[in-house]
């Protein structure tokens, strides 16, 4: 027996099947938020690639084999000199960990060149945070292909017993600068002091992904030990960080872990977040621009379009009625669009007419408290 589907039912099936009903996990969004915040604060890109003279680049390609054969990388101190010169001396200190470990995997050659603490510097400087750990890694291609600044890599310390996706450079106050020299990418990065965890096994992971990839490493729940996932389709190297256990401070480490995911220390100031806003609040706080009211008529595909110019900027939105009024109820739509100075709101009347209008908020975030 054949199941009969009318045109309307087919269209409904399409809309149901392909509806935007899958949400990213809170962990992914948290990682994104943390990363965006860190990027705003810390990221410093030094794109030296363009400065390599053409002749030198060609020479480098010709000599690729011998360069890699001798595993010659810049020293951690030289890398720091190009990024944060004040830090260079810290990598020369006796206290600094000169690792020079080299690993090859999946066509890459990766070296952990060194590790130091900002506290190792004798003279304080604004450029170096004495409460941070700094490390330098070099990443190259085994076949000599020069690295590309547009490719994404992730390098971060990991700590025995702390879930890697939660505790990595993105959440631990991290930042980095990087440049390419002779086809090799050098990255100097920092994060909150990890020496306090030196009584645990510490690692440095390097992957060819922009963020921490959850499938790249496994943590044994019983021992807390972290290992490379054999079946990970990409670079997933893990170096051991040989820190002196005498530098561990378990009490500070516990406080740090407790505080990292606890936002309650931010003070009493309430910062409004977008999910807490409702269309009703926007309507209450803002001023409706009456000239902006437009009755929306669905086009032949059932889509509603609205556009409005305010203070020199044009705003436009297109959405289906189902998207704006998922339960079909009349009144204000829970969905709205925010701009610099206001929001587009949608309202459904008893007779089903849908109207869109603009609400001026001045500074939209400050207006919502």
């Amino acid at each position, binding site marked *: 027996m054949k199941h009969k589907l009318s045109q309307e039912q087919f269209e409904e099936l*399409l809309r*149901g099947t392909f509806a935007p009903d899958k949400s990213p996990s809170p962990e992914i969004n948290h990682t994104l938020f943390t990363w965006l915040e860190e990027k705003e604060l810390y990221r410093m890109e030094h794109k030296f690639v363009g400065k390599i003279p053409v002749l030198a680049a060609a020479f480098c390609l010709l000599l690729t084999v011998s360069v890699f054969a001798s595993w010659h990388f810049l020293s951690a101190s030289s890398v720091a000199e190009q990024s944060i010169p004040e830090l260079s001396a810290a990598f020369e200190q006796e206290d600094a960990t000169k690792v020079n470990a080299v690993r090859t995997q999946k066509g890459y050659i990766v070296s952990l060149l060194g590790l130091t603490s900002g506290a190792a510097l004798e003279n304080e400087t604004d450029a170096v945070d004495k409460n941070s750990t700094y490390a330098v890694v070099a990443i190259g291609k085994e076949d000599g292909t020069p690295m590309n600044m547009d490719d994404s890599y992730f390098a971060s310390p990991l700590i025995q017993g702390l879930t890697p996706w939660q505790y990595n450079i993105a959440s631990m106050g991290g930042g980095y600068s990087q440049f390419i020299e002779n086809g090799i990418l050098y990255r100097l990065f920092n994060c909150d002091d990890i020496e306090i965890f030196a009584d645990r096994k510490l690692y440095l992971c390097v992957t060819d992904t922009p963020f921490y990839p959850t499938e790249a490493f496994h943590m044994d729940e019983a021992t807390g030990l972290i290992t490379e996932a054999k079946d990970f389709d990409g670079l997933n190297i893990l170096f051991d960080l040989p820190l002196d256990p005498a530098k561990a401070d378990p009490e500070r480490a516990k406080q740090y872990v407790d505080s990292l995911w606890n936002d309650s220390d931010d003070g009493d100031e309430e910062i409004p977040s977008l999910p807490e806003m409702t269309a009703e609040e926007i309507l209450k706080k803002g001023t409706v621009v009456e000239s902006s009211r437009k009755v929306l008529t669905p086009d032949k595909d059932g889509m509603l379009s609205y556009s409005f110019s305010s203070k020199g900027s044009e705003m436009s939105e297109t959405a289906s009625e189902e998207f704006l009024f998922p339960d079909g109820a009349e009144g204000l739509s829970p969905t709205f669009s925010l701009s610099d100075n206001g929001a587009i709101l949608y309202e459904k009347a008893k007779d089903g007419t849908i109207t869109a209008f603009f609400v001026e908020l001045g500074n939209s975030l400050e207006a919502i408290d």
Partner: protein
Amino acid sequence: MTYEDLHDVVLLHGKSIYSFCRHLTENAADADDLYQETFLKAAELCHKINKSQNPRAFLIRIAAGLWRNSIRKEAGRRKILPFSSLSDGEEAVSPEQPPETALLQREESELLSLCAKRLKPKLRLPLYMYYTAELSLSEIASILHVPVGTVKSRLWRAKQELKHDLEVHGYET
């Protein structure tokens, strides 16, 4: 647009963008990667995004571009997706419906979803952009660099192929 604005885009449009990534990549792990890479790329380009225009369309453009690059790289080693991995146990229908209706609709949705995955990318992209990312025809045209009429005809062809596939599986449309 600033990084802070991008933070707001995650909140406002994250679900729509993630759903788009999920349909394109066919599994949660790849969708996670594509979603994150999309925002990483957006962060690099955010100075070019005018937030008074449609940042969601910009993000969808980035996601589609990254996905196209990835399928070019993976061409030749992709395997046909097994039927059982389609839904990953997610409910595609309202839990308020009678169980038998819900089951039937879920089966229909799974079948349609499977059929869509077999469409050529140039038909699949506008389909997901229209139904999942809820972009207008003109926004899709702008992203794909084709006239609006071409978007309409690709959507029409996508639907015709889906109808045909449903008929093969015992549906009358």
